[in-house]
């Protein structure tokens, strides 16, 4: 199935991904709240699309502010961004860490349904409101609640640690750990080029050595160390999804836009364990759907944003996307193919590990990064987009490979 109407993304914006690692961050000092991030991201997009008057609909993507910030009914924050958004149709979507991707999908569908020509999508999460040990309780809601009692204290690191353990057993530990460390190195290297990244100021010299720190099961999980995990982040990302008419209304040239050419969504039963712990099967399905809809092969992609909530997830995502055979994702990374100068640069602003993972914003941040790359607006983060490869892809995963949104984008 092809998209029945041209859909574009324009005017992306990311706030800083705030949390440990940023010099502005102090856990005991007042910080911006949910409304501040929403406003900053929303206002910046509006300023580039001719103002709120041009917006038909709004989508806010947020995983779980009701627990992190004691705040629900987030769609009603749009008039707070700009009074001209008052009385416009707004909706909030949620799908765990794929919330941002679902926000984009919702906006795309509004444009396709011709109920809107301009949709403002804002993804946001503010998670530093509680200590990580309590955040783990909140994030566990992305899994099945009946698994919480027997789950690990750090619920999702526990889930992916189990996957890493299974992967080590099947494909070998040493090389996999080296690839995980290299992934971390690449993530920080990319984040250092992006001023909004949480790891922008990271000055550690021996990154790979650090990333090879042995896991400490007594204090954390069996097979992952902290460098294998994305951090706790506050932040928002926003972008406008527009039709051809929307582009004209906003006065935006196609040179400043990217086209959405493929959308793949997939769900897996929340109450079931993964069919195969060393594969991300729902990711495979979503990516395949997106590529089929776009009518391209992965070899035509110039860059990819994948959901590296954990380094092991990145290795498995590479295999799920078909860049490497099962068990060979580590070789692909260690050969340098995913680095910013490699065959297919991944996560060019650091991904979840380097840029940050404000849960509800992540899917939108991926789209913003790709919009920056394909429109040559990525500043120091810019990678080469070869003329024969005008495509890019994002993969946004919710829970343990449960909710998936994959998008294929094309340079205009």
């Amino acid at each position: 199935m092809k998209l029945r109407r041209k859909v574009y993304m324009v005017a992306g914006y990311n706030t800083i991904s705030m949390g440990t690692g940023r010099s502005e961050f102090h856990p005991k000092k007042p910080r911006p709240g949910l409304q501040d991030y929403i406003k900053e991201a929303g206002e910046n997009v509006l300023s580039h699309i001719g103002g709120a008057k041009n917006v038909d609909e709004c989508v806010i993507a947020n995983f779980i502010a009701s627990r992190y910030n004691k705040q629900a009914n987030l769609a009603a924050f749009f008039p707070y961004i700009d009074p001209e958004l008052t009385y416009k149709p707004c909706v909030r979507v949620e799908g765990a860490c794929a919330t941002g991707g679902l926000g984009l999908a919702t906006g795309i569908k509004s444009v396709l349904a011709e109920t809107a020509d301009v949709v403002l999508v804002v993804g946001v999460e503010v998670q530093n409101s509680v200590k990580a040990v309590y955040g783990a309780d909140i994030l566990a809601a992305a899994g099945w609640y009946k698994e919480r009692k027997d789950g690990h204290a750090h619920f999702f690191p526990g889930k992916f640690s189990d996957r890493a353990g299974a992967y080590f057993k099947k494909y070998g530990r040493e090389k996999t750990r080296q690839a995980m460390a290299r992934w971390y190195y690449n993530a920080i290297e990319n984040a250092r080029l992006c001023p909004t990244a949480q790891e922008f100021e990271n000055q550690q010299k021996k990154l790979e050595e650090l990333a090879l720190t042995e896991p400490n099961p007594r204090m954390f999980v069996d097979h992952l160390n902290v460098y294998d995990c994305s951090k706790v982040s506050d932040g928002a990302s926003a972008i406008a999804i527009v039709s051809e008419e929307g582009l004209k209304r906003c006065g935006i040239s196609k040179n400043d836009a990217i086209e959405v050419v493929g959308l793949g969504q997939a769900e897996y039963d929340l109450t079931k364990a993964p069919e195969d712990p060393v594969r991300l099967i729902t990711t495979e399905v979503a990516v395949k759907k997106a590529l089929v809809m776009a009518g391209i092969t992965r070899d035509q992609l110039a860059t990819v944003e994948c959901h590296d909530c954990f380094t092991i997830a990145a290795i498995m995502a590479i295999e799920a996307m078909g860049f490497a055979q099962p068990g060979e994702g580590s070789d692909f990374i260690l050969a340098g193919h995913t680095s910013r100068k490699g065959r297919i640069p991944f996560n060019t602003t650091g991904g979840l590990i380097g840029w940050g993972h404000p849960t509800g914003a992540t899917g939108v941040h991926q789209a913003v990064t790709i919009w920056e790359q394909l429109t040559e607006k990525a500043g120091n983060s810019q990678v080469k987009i070869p003329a024969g490869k005008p495509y890019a892809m994002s993969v946004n995963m919710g829970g343990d490979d449960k909710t998936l949104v994959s998008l294929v984008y094309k340079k205009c």
Partner: protein
Amino acid sequence: MKYEEKLENVTVLGAAGKMGSGILFLTATEMTRQKFLPVNKNREFVLYALDTSHKALSNLTTYIREQAWKFAEKNIVILRKTYQDRADLIDNEQIIRQYAQDLLGIIRPVTRIESAFDSNIIFEAISENPDLKVELMSTINKNNRNKPWFFTNTSAIPISWLDEQAQLNGRIMGVHFYNPPAVQKLLEVVKTENTRPELSYFVTDYIKNTGKIFVFAYDVAGFIGNGYFMRDILFAEKMVNELQEDFSYVQSVYMVNKISQDFLIRPMGTFQLVDYVGIDVVQFIMSVMKPHVSKENIHSPLVDQHLHELVKGGQYPEGSQKNGIFKYEKGQIAAVYDLRKKRYIPVSEFREECDEYLGALPADWQPWRKITRNPEKDETLKKYFENLRLSKKPGAQLAREYLIKFREIASDLVKNKVAFKFDDVNAVLIYGFHHAYGPINDYL
């Protein structure tokens, strides 16, 4: 009697004090851990928190609750397993709350010494008052049929003297915690010729189970920690006196503190550390050590003069620094107390002149916090000290002098049989005083 049986009934004397509260908390964590072991299912564990003031004991409960929450947060991975059978406890938060409740459940805040008459173990953490220590331990010993074991937190008084005075028959051992005990990793353990071996076995297990490390010290007044620190103060004071030939008193104090902090890359300068510990506490330790150290004069006129002016230092209950040799603003040194003018002189009035005289810090210098986290610490320190060695600036020269004395004090502690070996002195300085490096080193 087994280790866990001994732990069934414990008393902490001076439980509401700075050291006592930490020892109480650590002991409570260990007793709570024991309580959850299947083998101890039918045992009751009781921990008496003995102090003189109800108000202080009320504050102590708040402190212990906060510490228990922090401890549970840090150890949540293990605690989820501990509470695995409790179907009602699902979230980390529920488990943490329950743990804090269980830990507080074994503590009995009391003000009457009779509570200690049933205890098997007595941790003594009252002020460094030898007579009071003897009186309390002696009273408990006479009235307690369990022949209790005494573990004293004294940082200065010889254990054999306490043993003899309180007539404990070898049922005493020195277990000197560093402040704050809940955080500091290191303990100094002191046994006398009469100390019964069972006490050593017990304390070794206790230290291991509470996640601490220890060094043995000889039973010499001051042991390793204060044996070093008091002499460090006396040397700093000597340097102040020498500098006063060219500079004012406040300038000299400022410069020596700067040398011992910045040039030597320590967490705080010597005089700031005196304020942190409390000038009155330092005087007390010196007075306790003095009669036991015949060859040296462990006595500081500078300390006496401050106390004469009622300038005491020390900390407020919430942990912030009281004014002492220095006046503090937002935790930073803002002024130096002038003993002659009897008022604080702002550092801003003379800092520039002093800093100019001392000269810039040598190349490759890093602040203490940064260097302790630097994975290439040893290499960086080597380069820094080489630059310090080559520098002709007065600050670097004084720092070299200080470092040489630092090493001499440490060597003497081993030579004079206060410490068993150099590594133990280094361990005390690194883990107890949080220095970035030990005094016995190859840097200079």
